[in-house]
């Protein structure tokens, strides 16, 4: 079973969580001034890396909070999680 560390509740089973896409994508402050290409980039273009990826997750069957996680897309290993609005810790819980 894959355990994910919720920044509030601690380690919980993967089945309690929902995935919410790539993390750290800020909505443009002035959407009216964007070109179609820039708007499309904001809406649709994602990194999809092979390796460490920063993502949003929701602890749906627990505290129902969103948080950030860093996951290795090759090994599925979660290397660290942190609360929304906070900076990630400088060290990883585990190596990828």
């Amino acid at each position, binding site marked *: 079973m894959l355990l994910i560390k919720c920044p*509030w509740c601690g380690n919980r089973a993967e*089945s309690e969580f929902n995935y919410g896409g790539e993390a750290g994508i800020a909505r443009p402050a002035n959407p009216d001034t964007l070109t179609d290409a820039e708007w499309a980039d904001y809406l649709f273009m994602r990194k999809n890396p092979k390796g460490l990826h920063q993502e949003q997750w929701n602890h749906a069957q627990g*505290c129902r909070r969103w948080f950030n996680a860093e996951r290795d897309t090759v090994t599925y290993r979660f290397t660290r999680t942190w609360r929304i609005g906070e900076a990630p810790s400088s060290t990883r819980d585990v190596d990828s």
Partner: protein
Amino acid sequence: MSDSLKRHHCLEPFSEDSATIGSSASAEPAIRVTFDGHREFYNLRGDPADAAFTDAVKSFTGQSIPDKANTLSYRECTTCWLGPDEWLVVYPSFEAGRFEKFSTELDSTDATAVDVSHGYIVLCLSGDSALDLLAKGCTLDLHLSSFNVGDCVQTGIARTAAIIANIAEGDHYEVIVRRTFAEYLAIWMRHAGAEFGIGFD
């Protein structure tokens, strides 16, 4: 007039239909389940760093709100931690006008309380095998080393979202579920508990 009306809950037909299962009729079953459908539940949202809010709740309920994740405080009522700014206040019985008073108490703060009493029912489990039964449908480690009196967890039991509250010494656990899922969960318990012996009141 309303004083003379009897309050009912959705699992009353279930208790009447369910004899003790999995052990002989004379022996006390290893798990006993009672339904409590007459409690009051308030969903509370507020900033725990806001003293006006925490003081208002403390003066009304007589206890501090738990600030540690997945714990509860218990005296006249139970206050369960649901999130960093969210709690569930549970009173053991209904009292007319109590919620209005509580709501008024919070008027001067930035907090909010919602009466969600009609959304929930409590399944009270007791007996030596009560945790074994919950463990069959739940991914959490419910061993004493990680789940003690004063702890409450939100998790899934047999794919149903539930709160498990550990409020008393001994093998007593309260499972707080949405009413609409309660019958399903009770039926699951009847099947999953048969190997231990389970009785419903």
